[in-house]
């Protein structure tokens, strides 16, 4: 799914990293500005709360800059950043679970049948999008991370395996189980709503 970066992009990234390693503040700024929105979007989906996501995002960047010398330019910088962000996110979720005893607080939403299915019966595409994201939030952290990295951030299974430090087969298993779980969570979405969305989105072939 992901395309290999062209040589010029890779070379430019390598030059930026070299400058950042040498203490060039403008290079560091460019690296942050290039990746912060994608990284924050991923972390936001992992930790749910936007204040927590900002803190985790900052921590991930700080860890990255602190160990910039150990980064191998053989890989994409974004893969490395997401690797750090995924681990910091998991640590954050573990700490949160230890403090509150309830990590997956988003499961409180849309679990009482009436609100879920009433919303699902709405014909508004926006409501369907909300339902889908709510279902994604109810997945386990590894399943959620796999799906978001795969679809939202267009990483291939090999890159995701690097980011999550898992075998490729396990990544594919998370992808499969995550899709199945989404199918269960969204089982009551009406056919008409699905078809209408597909038509509007150009998915219908």
């Amino acid at each position: 799914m992901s395309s290999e970066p062209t040589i010029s992009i890779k070379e430019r990234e390598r030059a930026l990293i070299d400058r950042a390693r040498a203490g060039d503040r403008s290079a560091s700024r460019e690296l942050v500005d290039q990746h912060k929105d994608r990284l924050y979007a991923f972390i936001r989906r992992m930790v749910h709360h936007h204040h927590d996501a900002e803190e985790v995002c900052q921590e991930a960047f700080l860890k990255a800059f602190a160990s910039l010398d150990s980064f191998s330019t053989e890989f994409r910088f974004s893969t490395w950043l997401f690797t750090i962000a995924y681990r910091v996110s998991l640590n954050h979720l573990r700490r949160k679970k230890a403090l509150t005893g309830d990590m997956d607080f988003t499961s409180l939403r849309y679990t009482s049948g009436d609100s879920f299915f009433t919303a699902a019966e709405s014909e508004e595409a926006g409501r369907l999008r909300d339902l889908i994201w709510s279902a994604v939030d109810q997945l386990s952290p590894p399943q959620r991370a796999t799906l978001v990295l795969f679809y939202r951030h267009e990483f291939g299974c090999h890159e995701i395996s690097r980011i999550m430090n898992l075998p490729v087969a396990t990544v594919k298993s998370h992808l499969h189980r995550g899709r199945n779980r989404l199918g269960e969570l969204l089982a009551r979405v009406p056919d008409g709503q699905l078809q209408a969305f597909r038509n509007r989105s150009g998915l219908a072939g």
Partner: protein
Amino acid sequence: MNCEQAQQLFDAYLDGELSPALTTELGAHRLQCPDCRRALALLEVTGHVLSTDREPDELPVGFTDRLLACVDEPRKGWSHRLPQRLIYVGVPVAAAAMVALAFLGFFDRPSGEAAGEKAMAPPSAQLLQGITKGNVASSENALRIDETPVNEQLLAEWLERTREHIAAQEQAGESLQKMMDMTILQLLDVLQQAQESRGPLRAPGEKDAVTAPPPAKVSTQDVEDL
């Protein structure tokens, strides 16, 4: 192709890894089977939403500036997590400070002139060694070295002070043990209280420490019995 076979191909189809021949077969089954048609449509819509939706929240303005400031001065990044840092770092530091203060004799200082007691320097190591061995001559030698005239009354007072000193150290040890079970906030309160009053350290809920009795007059015989 039946439904079970079709469902086994869903992932490869969605990932674009299915061969053209199998894609055609799956497409044919999809046209015939409403359940598989719906399941695939749901997965396609979900993938589309995940791929194309923008995040509802964005990073606040100034994130990059704050981050780079933290890179330059890492300590600045700690400020917003002070409570956690206080717990992780503050407890060991405060405990270490308490131990250090106890060894320096901070907590068993006399409470001041109000008690009508005079602070007295502890006996020298040489004098203490001699007294411990019950060797009064040694004490006398030490006094001579210090060019202090031999005074039995003064020696008795020193001995009494030594006993008080040991008792106070034991009391400080007990207080430290109690402090190990205290929370950081209780610890800070007690530390502040101790600094203000310069009195003996007490754990919350601890009854007033028994005040050491005033130095009793000891005879020369008592000294020799030591």
